[in-house]
């Protein structure tokens, strides 16, 4: 089952596809959401291990460079990574901000918009954005499209990889592996409504504990994400290893992939047709008898001049 698309009749968006995707039951499907409560995370990396276990990913053993981040970044074989930040607040208190970085499963996925390969990226009715690597051609456009810098291109097969939100587990009624493994309950999973409610409760709690700027990270720029954070400092998401303030699909990507391409394709067709119709109306450009005659005259004149002694 792993690696296959598990939910073929509930695809609500499909990369590089003009006609509607099958969404037979999409009305009845509830959107799911993973809630990561950063304030409760102890950085044990159990989720990272669980992710590698469930997805059978074995990254190369790295080197300790004096930080807890390991590996230092997402890779094709590490679909989630814990990012550790030391933050000193105004009172000089040290806070350890630990963010679990993985695909955010945007409601408006930039990867899906940028992808040229039909069906290589799909969005299920439950909100999960999945890569179907079988259709991936390795062009790397999803990397350009993503506002969160998540997809990674494998050096082995040149295909793109990222967190699937354990779409295979979710399809069978299980929670994602990272959620299952979290010992502090800082990762939660459920319907979108539930999780947004829970996030509010946690935010209120944090505010009560003196974190005035606590809040939910569910950015509007991508129409919300199906992975949301509770942050102690929601006013400054950048503190959490450069979590983008206001992520949105880059206007460059929009300009590249939006309305211009169908219009340009049409322009190409029209240009070819215009040529044909020009031929039909104006006719070909040909030289005439007068040119032949003029050349004969020129030749005769030259011969005459040259034969003169």
């Amino acid at each position, binding site marked *: 089952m792993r690696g296959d698309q598990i939910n073929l009749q509930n695809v609500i968006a499909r990369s590089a596809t003009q006609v509607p995707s099958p969404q037979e039951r999409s009305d009845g499907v509830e959107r799911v959401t993973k809630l990561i409560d950063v304030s409760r995370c102890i950085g044990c990396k159990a989720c990272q291990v669980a992710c590698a276990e469930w997805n059978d990913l074995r990254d190369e053993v790295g080197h300790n460079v004096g930080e807890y981040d390991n590996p230092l970044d997402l890779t094709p074989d590490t679909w989630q990574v814990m990012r550790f930040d030391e933050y000193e607040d105004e009172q000089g208190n040290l806070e350890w901000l630990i963010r679990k970085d993985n695909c955010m499963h945007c409601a408006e996925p930039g990867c899906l918009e940028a992808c*040229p390969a039909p069906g290589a990226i799909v969005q299920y009715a439950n909100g999960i954005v999945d890569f179907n690597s079988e259709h991936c*051609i390795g062009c790397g*456009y999803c990397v350009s499209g993503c506002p969160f810098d998540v997809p990674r291109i494998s050096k082995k097969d040149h295909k793109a990889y990222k967190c699937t939100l354990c779409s295979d587990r979710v399809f069978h009624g299980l929670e994602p592996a990272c959620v299952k493994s979290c010992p502090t309950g800082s990762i939660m999973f459920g319907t979108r409504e539930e999780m947004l409610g829970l996030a509010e409760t946690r935010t209120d709690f944090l505010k009560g504990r003196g974190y005035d700027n606590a809040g939910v990270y569910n950015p509007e720029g991508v129409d919300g994400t199906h992975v949301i954070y509770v942050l102690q400092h929601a006013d400054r998401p950048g503190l959490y290893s450069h979590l983008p303030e206001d992520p949105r699909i*880059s206007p460059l990507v929009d300009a590249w992939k939006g309305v211009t391409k169908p219009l340009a394709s049409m322009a190409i067709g029209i240009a070819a047709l215009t040529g044909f119709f020009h031929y039909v109306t104006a006719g070909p450009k040909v030289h005439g008898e007068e*040119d032949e005659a003029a050349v004969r005259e020129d030749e005769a004149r030259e011969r005459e001049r040259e034969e003169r002694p």
Partner: protein
Amino acid sequence: MSLAKSDPPLQRYSVWNRLNHWLVAISFVLLVLSGLPFFHPFFWSLTALFGGPTMTRILHPYIGLFMTLMFLFMAVAFFKESLIKRRDLQWLRQIRDVLANRDERLPPVGKNNAGQKLVYWIMLGCIVLLLVTGLLIWQPYFAGAVPITLRRLASLGHAAVAFVAILTLIIHVYSGIWVKGSFQAMVRGRVSWAWARHHHGLWYEEEREKARKRRAIDRRHATPTNRQESP
């Protein structure tokens, strides 16, 4: 270089010019066919021509490099005759007469008309830009090392420039079909004197002058027997 009996007398393109031109043309068409599927999914089925989607993605940049190299040779060979002169502007101003086949109203044209010169310069500019932007987004070699904003800009630029190049190609191909004898000129390299006089009056005069000089030299060096044989 062998000549067929049916080939007209006046040489316009050398055999190297022609081979070079057609290598550029073939690779350009292959680039359009392999690039359009990534431009818009409407053209996705074209990937079948190249052995599947991934193969298309792999081949496209290599064909691009090959074409750039071939175009470089052509750009050098055609540089001098592609410089835009003042008289070309008059020709461009009368583009309506050009399009309506009112050729008698047009100013005499050199070896290339302003349209051909524009194709040269537009394609030269496009290919430089396509090469640069293409390298910046080339997976798996360079793209990984390019900052993301630059990569996005390059993707946008590559598509936009390709669009301009494709339109130019369409106009160029159509002109070859429209102006009778020019396709033959690029295939066999030769045109008739009357064709040259009609479409490229100044070039015609130049070639006549060259031919006169050649005959004069021939006469001076000719033996008496030869003189009788050649009229």
